[in-house]
């Protein structure tokens, strides 16, 4: 029989830590700090709006780009939070999670041979999605000494004649790094000068703990016309299972993405879209409450890890800390596997998010304080036993 699998699919690397996942799966008694989703339930008023839409029989497709009502609310959100004008009719696309929006944005913009710059460590889908278009992913290993922010020098070094797209993902999964206005200004200037399009994955934007609101690169001069902002409801409103995200950007790009989305997906889930309207209209207080709680746990985790001798830069976003284990003379994978086996605690090796994650661990604080306490106690024991 001929090979049923396409070459491009076959050549995509499976997620590097599949093996580690399998060990975790076989250990039901193990606890975990390994999730990438909120521990909160979706606020009831949002769930209730979804239920109500079902009761009303809103069980049909929406338009390809999503409910106009929702697209308008998203446009309002960008006006309210960032002072940006987007036309809800033409510059917003509702997708199945932020993940789909990333895929569609890359498909819409990258041709075979184009280079897509991807700073790592980062979420696992950017590189494969870029490869699926035939584009060449060019990764930049970000440095802990820069708090895992992208510097203008690093970007300039990666740019070639073929560079078309830069993917920015801040606040970042897995590092928790943020890019503040001053950091983004330097990047924006280069993108304008070198005519680079930015896909800015801001799914964790609401979960920023600098004390200043999240800044999107689209706010900066010359950037709105060359930025596709990816966002969604999963992290901010604790709605991961609803699978709802969106992209906002220049009409030309969004319309082409909508065309692809129409063929691949038809439209995002209708129930989720009605729930999302409620989230945007009446969800600010929920987000503020969750953000405060995450921030408390973040401070607790960073301090406790540092106190037990794991160096940990201050992560000001998302719900992850990214401590270093470089001084322990073992790989991230080794550390995670031994921790799991001896203390029944799962954390994610940094290498799951790119080779430059070697020497780091991703620890999620989307857990209750008592769970965090228990888990950190186990890490402490593990470290003591190493010595």
């Amino acid at each position, binding site marked *: 029989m001929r090979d049923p699998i396409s070459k491009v699919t076959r050549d995509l690397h499976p997620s590097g830590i599949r093996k580690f996942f399998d060990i975790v799966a076989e250990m039901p008694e193990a606890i*975990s700090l*390994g999730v990438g*989703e909120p521990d909160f339930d979706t606020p009831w008023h949002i769930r209730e709006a979804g239920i109500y839409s079902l009761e009303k029989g809103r069980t049909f497709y929406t338009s390809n780009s999503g409910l106009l009502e929702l697209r308008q609310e998203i446009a309002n959100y960008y006006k309210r939070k960032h002072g940006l004008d987007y036309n809800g009719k033409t510059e917003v696309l509702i997708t199945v999670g932020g993940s789909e929006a990333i895929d569609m944005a890359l498909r819409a913009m990258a041709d075979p041979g184009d280079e897509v710059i991807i700073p790592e460590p980062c979420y696992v889908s950017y590189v494969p999605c870029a490869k699926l278009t035939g584009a060449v992913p060019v990764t930049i290993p970000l440095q802990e000494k820069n708090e895992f922010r992208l510097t203008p020098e690093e970007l300039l070094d990666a740019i070639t004649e073929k560079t078309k797209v830069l993917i920015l993902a801040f606040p970042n999964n897995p590092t928790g790094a943020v890019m503040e206005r001053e950091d983004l200004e330097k990047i924006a200037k280069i993108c304008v000068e070198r005519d680079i399009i930015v896909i800015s994955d801001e799914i964790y934007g609401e979960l920023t703990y600098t004390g200043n609101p999240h800044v999107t690169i689209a706010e900066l001069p010359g950037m709105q016309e060359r930025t596709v902002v990816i966002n969604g409801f999963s992290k901010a409103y604790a709605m991961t299972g609803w699978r709802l995200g969106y992209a906002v950007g220049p009409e030309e790009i969004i319309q082409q993405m909508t065309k692809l989305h129409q063929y691949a997906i038809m439209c995002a889930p209708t129930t989720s879209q009605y729930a999302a309207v409620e989230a945007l209209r009446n969800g600010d207080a929920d987000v503020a409450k969750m953000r*405060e709680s995450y921030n*408390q746990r973040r*401070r607790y985790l960073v301090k406790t890890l540092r106190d037990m001798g794991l160096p940990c830069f201050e992560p000001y976003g998302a719900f992850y800390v990214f401590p270093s284990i470089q001084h322990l003379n073992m790989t991230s994978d080794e550390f995670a596997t031994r921790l799991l086996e001896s203390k029944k605690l799962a954390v994610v090796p940094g290498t799951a*998010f790119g080779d430059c994650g070697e020497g780091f661990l991703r620890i999620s604080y989307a857990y209750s*304080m008592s769970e965090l306490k228990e888990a950190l106690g186990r890490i402490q024991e593990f470290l003591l036993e190493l010595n």
Partner: protein
Amino acid sequence: MKEELLRLIENNSRIDLKDLATCLGAEEAAVANMLQELEQDGTISGYYTLINWDNTDEEKVDALIEINVNTQREVGFDTIAERIYKFDEVKSCYLISGAYDFLVMLEGKTMREIANFVSSKLSPIEYVTGTATHFIMKRYKDYGTVLGAKKIDERERITL
């Protein structure tokens, strides 16, 4: 920091000072001082434990009593409220808007005990013109906590 501290301990008054300071990103001494001030000025009025007595052998009955009163010259709501809330049986007492004036929560050992209290202590207060007693049959949620609900983490243990 004050409000964040209060929100934090409102939901977990047992968190120890060290963790409290860490969660707030503050020095222990500063948090201790702030707690002391808040206790002294009455902002923190007490530390209680939310108990689901249904899980115990102790018999308890709670009732909500609506009370209508007639205020008089020099006898306003505050004065009347004091006559009501000074009874140990009264757990909570609120002045409210709407069809009646006070809402009082009583705790007793039996329904009869509560009925006796209403008829022999509350109703006879000279300003009280009427009461309506509602016995609580079942408590589902108190102070923001759903009673008897055990939260199970249904998430996958690792997601990227």
